[in-house]
């Protein structure tokens, strides 16, 4: 018994010491804290190249909270997080906006908004966060594994691709885009839900699996489980690394614009600083850096890239203007029904 008591004592003394240490540290410089919720990819780029200069200039400590769209949005929903700025794809940002989780943006505080593409200014309505990058959702394929080159969405329905592709899950950002593509392939000009699902049913024998995260796609592609599939252009670099012959194409019916947005959380206590940060990531300087590092395609029109710098990126007026843009409000209103139909009619 004595031993146990002394062990307890030791542990409690130890924790007290630790607690004392940590509180001392907090008292020192008192930089403000800005919590940024983001996906967490390319962290080794963002930390030194993007966060560090901002931290220095504004005497602020940036804390990153990483995870996928759904998880992070849920944290904000449950209101027990201290997130100030949140990066989300437009699909998830719309959900947050409809639930009143985000602050309206005062454009005067984000002067760099003037310099970005019109499409990027207000992907979810004029009052909310801009897109800091636009990626293209198109098709990647391995030319050695398919019998004919792929050039359109329609080609993914080819019988030759039986058991050779993957498609995005309806719950992922690009799921609704692919559903729209299916509607298009079915011959309908406007989006037609019934036709889209009927068309989707026809592609299921080709799909080995639905992917929820792009990393799954990259994995299946590098392991040779799939030969083709719809994917965002920004991940094509990873594919090419594994399969040097891989090709990315913008389908001739048009690729889709995937917009990644930034928003300020309503419950944030650092709204001024958050707006500064938003302005900062839209600046020519940051946009150029992330473009040259091939992390994010730029939306700032002042960024000029050479042809080599632009490969793998969604860059240039004509490319951006050719992209199809989904109405996220409509997508969000319909998504529950789509997910339900998808589960019932397709996921077997």
């Amino acid at each position, binding site marked *: 018994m004595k031993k146990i008591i002394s062990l307890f004592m030791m542990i409690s003394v130890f924790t007290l010491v630790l607690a004392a240490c940590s509180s001392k540290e907090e008292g020192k410089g008192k930089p403000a804290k800005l919590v940024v919720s983001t996906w967490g990819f390319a962290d080794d780029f963002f930390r030194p190249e993007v966060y560090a200069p901002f931290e220095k200039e504004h005497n602020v400590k940036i804390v990153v909270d990483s995870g996928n769209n759904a*998880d992070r949005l849920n944290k904000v929903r449950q209101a027990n997080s201290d997130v100030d700025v949140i990066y989300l794809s437009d699909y998830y940002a719309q959900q947050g906006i409809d639930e009143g989780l985000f602050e309206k943006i005062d454009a005067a505080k984000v002067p760099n908004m003037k310099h970005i593409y019109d499409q990027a200014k207000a992907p979810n309505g004029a009052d909310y966060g801009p897109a800091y990058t636009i990626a293209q959702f198109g098709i990647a394929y391995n030319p050695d594994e398919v019998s004919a080159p792929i050039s359109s969405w329609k080609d993914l329905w080819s019988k030759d691709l039986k058991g050779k592709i993957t498609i995005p899950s309806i*719950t992922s950002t690009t799921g609704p885009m692919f559903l729209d593509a299916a509607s298009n392939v079915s011959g309908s000009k406007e989006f037609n839900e019934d036709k889209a699902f009927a068309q989707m049913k026809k592609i299921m024998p080709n799909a*080995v*699996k639905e992917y929820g995260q792009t990393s799954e796609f990259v994995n299946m592609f590098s*392991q*040779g*489980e799939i030969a083709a599939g719809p994917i965002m252009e920004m991940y094509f670099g990873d594919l090419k690394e594994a399969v040097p012959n891989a090709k990315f194409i913008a389908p001739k019916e048009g690729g889709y614009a995937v917009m990644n947005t930034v928003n300020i959380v309503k419950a944030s206590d650092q709204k001024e600083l958050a707006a500064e940060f938003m302005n900062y990531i839209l600046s020519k300087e940051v946009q150029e850096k992330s473009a040259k590092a091939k992390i994010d395609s730029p939306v700032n029109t002042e960024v000029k890239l050479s042809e080599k710098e632009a490969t793998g990126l969604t860059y240039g007026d004509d490319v951006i203007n050719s992209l199809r843009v989904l109405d996220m409000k409509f997508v969000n209103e319909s998504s529950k029904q789509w*997910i339900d139909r998808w589960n019932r009619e397709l*996921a077997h």
Partner: protein
Amino acid sequence: MKKRYLYLLLLPGLLFLTVFMIIPIFLTIGTTFINDHGFSIQGYLDFFKDRYFVEILLTTLRVSLFTTILCILLGFPAAYYISKLKQRKKAIMLLLTIFPLLTSPVVRSFSWMVIIGKNGVVNKVLLSIGLIEKPLDILYTPTAIIIGLVHLFLPLIIVTLVGVMENIETDLLKAAESLGASRLAVFSKVVIPLSVPGLVIGSILVFVGSFTAYTTPALLGGKQRVISTFLYQNAITLNEWQVASIVATIMIAVTVLIISIMNGLAKKLNPKG
């Protein structure tokens, strides 16, 4: 220390479980019976009328059942062998047995992807010796889930079985042999019945584990859903906590049901146990 104060030692653990497990579970179950009009079981009725959900439930049960049977078939002989070893060797073998448990399910699932994939080891070997002409589709099917789960849960059943088998007196086996029982008879008439308690506990662990497993089915399974991935989709992506709670309650109910069925079976098999 006086004996009557000993129960105080239970308090910290009990408090922890009450606050962090028992209360949340009851809250979860409670909400599923309440809708806009007060008490209702409509949510459950809707579920069981829904062929789609019943299909997911059946798939999950089927996968869990196969996993359990396979684990018993593979684990029983292994456990018997290990229980017969000398102390030192036994320790080493047990360590090797639980080794798979020390790696994360994600890593394990990824290694299975490499092994049973289209260009995986299994298909390459079978192709090169000419047994098959086209790669087998194993990955992204329920078979892949079962393989992954057996790998995951085999240690559990072996460890529980070894524990029980160790306690079978060697004198009993000798007595049986001296009374003229063949080795096979000793095994089937003495060893198996006496191992039933371990078998039951092990099977329950494996079954419940497979029934609720998320990572393995999510990574190795294909388009087909199992109940835990369905729950995840509802809770995390759709934000449908009511539906997710109903699914969770059904999972708890099925688990309790299975445990009582297995216990009943065990009593029948081993009436004096």
